[in-house]
């Protein structure tokens, strides 16, 4: 240790943080294999991120689940303190309110970061759904509000919004909801784990990025990818 190192005190011993909200469909149609794969995928994601020494100190995760109700299934915590909830499939698909809840979660988390003087990266909202919303439809008030918040949020760099449709999700409807610069993708059958592995690697890349870095994400839609771009 240098002589100075023994004498100096670090001013703000904290890491920059990356906040991610998983917005997950737990409606009745997700019952069976899909909800099992979703739960397993989330558990895998948490374990994989925890395996990266830097990411485990920087990634913060929250889960908003929507089915019989919209609820914060897990409030924001560091990935180290994250205990994946066991999600159950039941009810309808209040996707609109769930997205608004996620955006609210992001805004509150940013306010906490600022209050504590914690640096942070641009947060992520990651929507996974197998249906179409039952609490809004194109052109109604909630739809207009949700699509405006999502599109403005992306345009103003408030967050990054990713939408993944699980069969038989209405991808055309998701395309209208998602930001134009980030259209939705369709999950290839049974590829939940690959999707969460991609999400883990992406979070690791973001959390390791430094000022001036351009974070290159792997394409999820390559020949061996977990998703495909819908053409119909």
């Amino acid at each position: 240790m240098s002589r100075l190192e023994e004498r100096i005190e670090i001013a703000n011993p904290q890491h920059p943080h990356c906040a991610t909200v998983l917005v997950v469909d737990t409606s009745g149609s997700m019952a069976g294999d899909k909800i099992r794969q979703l739960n397993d995928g989330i558990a895998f994601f948490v374990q994989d991120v925890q395996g990266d020494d830097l990411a485990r100190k920087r990634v913060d995760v929250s889960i908003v689940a929507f089915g019989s109700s919209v609820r914060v299934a897990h409030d924001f915590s560091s990935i180290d303190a994250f205990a994946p909830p066991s999600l159950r499939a039941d009810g309808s698909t209040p996707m609109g309110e769930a997205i608004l809840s996620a955006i609210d979660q992001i805004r509150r988390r940013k306010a906490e970061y600022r209050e504590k003087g914690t640096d942070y990266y641009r947060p992520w909202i990651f929507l996974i759904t197998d249906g179409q919303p039952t609490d809004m439809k194109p052109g109604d008030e909630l739809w207009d509000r949700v699509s405006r918040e999502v599109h403005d949020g992306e345009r103003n760099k408030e967050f990054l919004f990713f939408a993944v449709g699980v069969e038989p999700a209405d991808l055309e409807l998701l395309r209208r909801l998602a930001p134009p610069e980030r259209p939705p993708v369709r999950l290839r059958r049974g590829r939940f784990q690959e999707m969460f592995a991609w999400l883990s690697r992406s979070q690791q890349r973001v959390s390791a990025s430094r000022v001036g870095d351009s974070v290159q994400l792997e394409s999820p839609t390559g020949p061996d990818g977990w998703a495909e771009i819908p053409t119909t």
Partner: protein
Amino acid sequence: MHVPRVFGASVAGAAHVSSGTECQDRFAIRLGGDGIVIAVADGLGSAPLSALGASEAVDAAVGAGAAMLGHPSAPGPETVAAAMPAFARVRLERRTAEGAWPLKHLGCTLVAIAVRGTSACVAHVGDGAVVALTGAGWVLASPPARAEYANVVDPLTADGWVHALRVSEVVSDVRFIAAFTDGCHHAILRPDGCDGVVPHAGFLDPVAAFAAQTLSDEEGAAELEALLGGAKLGEHSDDDKTLVVAWIGPFASDPPSVHAP
């Protein structure tokens, strides 16, 4: 008349060490007339020639600044500091023209300081920061640029760099001044509870005292290099780190009432 102690060090962060990438921070120091010019630059990770950009930027900045200070009718530190980034920018434009590269490939930030006597001024594009010890205590001479996200910055190579340029007020009665890149932010600046930062005396007092007492610039640089490359600073930042310091006075042989903290 005492010659100021001016020295600095740059070390590659753990991320670059593990990837075999060279340190992309650069600094330069020049004495001119009755003054000092210092420039610190941080090459952008996304720019393939950013280390070259940072080298050229600091070299051009201190060269121009020293020439101005060495002129018989040397201007004040605010005029010198304000001019230094423009010279750096022109140098980068010339280099990219020579190499037929896009300007953004040499992307870097720049902190330029001019000191005359005990007055200092900072011209600043991007992150990094400058702090000074004055007769009234520690001051934040130039804060990091305000960007919401941890990996975002406006570099010297951006089209709108002039709008991102900040020139500080002249800081008077300066005894010690330090410039550093963002890899050192967490060590030197602490949140002020109002969405800003302030200099942390717990870090700076020992460094200033060391600078006041060190016997040579070479010894000082070696000690800074060891500090920047040590575990304490590496714990919360794997980024490249640069710290340049100048002890302007008073010195140990001066009357005891004006000694270092």
